[in-house]
């Protein structure tokens, strides 16, 4: 196997090791098999769920909600993060609200969101967008604050307007950190969408599926769904890894 090929496979190693560990725990009966089913059973449940179409549908619903929430979050919080990050004083002013909401469980805020937005689809997306926004905002702002100032000064010297400096320099300068924020954000959006599907109530989505499987004590199905959520999260992250690797080529240089 060539080295290049090997490198393409490294990401799979983690997944394989993870399933192997699961399988070992199962085989050694370290955990009662009623509580932790075998990976085979779970994978079979995934397979039949996807073929049957029910899991596929829930999966797609959750993907849609997550991406929507994430897109809203990015659109709001990357620009805001750059503005706040450029003015540490302003950021300190908002810090309370950001940290406050970052530190409050979203599930505890569901009542508030429901009050404001009602019980529809909007709430699930809004609450996920809100949660993800905070993370992205926080990371972007920090990326900007910790970015070296020379390049911004250079652009300023060349006569770039403050707006252009922000977009063309500050944004890019903070991009490695912003990517960290976006990856954290997309995972978080997914988590909240699922939690909302679990705790607000829903007729579809992976979260609803988890809670239903749990209610009827169908452990293979439950773990299959959780596994599906995890893989979805990893895939979304993978997207960013690929974009980042091709785009932020200068990180660490």
């Amino acid at each position, binding site marked *: 196997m060539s080295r290049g090929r090997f490198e393409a496979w490294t990401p799979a190693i983690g997944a394989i090791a993870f399933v192997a560990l699961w399988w070992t725990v199962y085989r050694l009966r370290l*955990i*009662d098999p*009623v*509580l932790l089913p075998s990976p085979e059973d779970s994978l079979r449940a995934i397979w039949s769920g996807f073929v049957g179409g029910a899991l596929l549908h829930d999966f797609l619903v959750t993907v849609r909600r997550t991406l929507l929430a994430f897109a809203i979050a990015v659109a709001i919080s990357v620009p805001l993060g750059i503005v706040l990050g450029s003015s540490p004083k302003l950021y300190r002013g908002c810090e309370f609200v950001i940290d406050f909401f970052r530190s409050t469980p979203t599930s505890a805020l*569901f*009542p508030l969101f*429901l*009050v404001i937005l*009602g*019980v*529809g689809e909007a709430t699930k997306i809004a609450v996920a967008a809100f949660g993800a926004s905070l993370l992205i905002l926080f990371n972007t702002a920090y990326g900007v604050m910790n970015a070296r100032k020379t390049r911004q000064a250079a652009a300023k010297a060349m006569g770039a307007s403050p707006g252009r400096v922000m977009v063309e320099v500050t944004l890019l300068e903070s991009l490695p950190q912003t990517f960290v924020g976006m990856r954290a954000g997309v995972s978080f959006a997914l988590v909240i969408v699922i939690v909302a599907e*679990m*705790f*607000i*109530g*829903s*007729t579809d989505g992976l979260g*609803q599926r988890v*809670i*239903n499987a*749990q*209610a*009827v*004590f*169908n452990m293979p199905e439950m773990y299959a769904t959780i596994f599906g959520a995890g893989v979805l999260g990893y895939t979304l992250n993978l997207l960013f890894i690929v974009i980042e690797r091709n785009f932020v080529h200068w990180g660490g240089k």
Partner: protein
Amino acid sequence: QDKVKMGLFIASSAMPYFIAKERGYFAAENLDVEGIPIANHPLIVQALVKGDIDTASNLISLEGANINVLRPGTANYFSINCQNTTWRLEAFMVSAKNTTIKTLKDLKGQRIMCAPGPGNLFVAKGVLKKIGLEDGRDYTMQEQQMSNHIGAMQSGQFEVAYSLEPVVSMLEHRGIARRIESGVIATHLLGRPDACAVLAGGVMSDRFVKERPVVAERLARAWAKALKDGNEDPTARDLLNKHMNVAAEIAQTVPLSRYFMVRDLTPQQIADFQKLTDLAVEGGVVKSKIDVRTFLKRF
């Protein structure tokens, strides 16, 4: 068709909604009822207050009483789910491996897992108190989400549980645990094994009843038909697994509560409801004393 939004708490007690929907009782009344699953009761209350939903299929009576104290008229019960030793929805369970515990009195010295929420805790503790066991002194009790009851029992983390259907049936069916006693609320708190312990029921908001009285009435008519099927027609159980997260293995045997339209309640049953509510006030889980008749709505 008139549009009605109905909050659903997905559990076997939401059965009338699914019966009415599937069997066309709503349609027959020219109603388009949209069921909105809401995962916990306080959120159902919120949705009622805000007007996001007009009605709910199965709101816990404790929540109902509480919100009616705070904001009279929010949740008007028009149907009631009764439970007791015949319609057995809750039970004290003991691990199948344990052979010594036979009656509630044997629970002395145990760690007990309890269905979640202050209402369940209050009931479980109240029952044991009647038996003569004191929390902290004779036993300890910890709430657990229902979804954890089977796991915690199976893995031996708890030997004893105060649990609710359908988990109770599941524990029995799988041979994980056996029943010590069920219908304990009726027997011990209300004093009669055949008392009507009201845990939940269908509600309508004041606004809905006032602004659309005719629609409300038609809804009640459809509902009454559904209740009848639920009480008498075993084939209705097919819906349990399909819509209400009841495992197929027990869907045909799991006990269900008995549904009553409020107009069909006997004075005794209303008194039972009042007594349970008063006890809840004493126990601190309902804010202040309230006459249940103020929020019972006959159609």
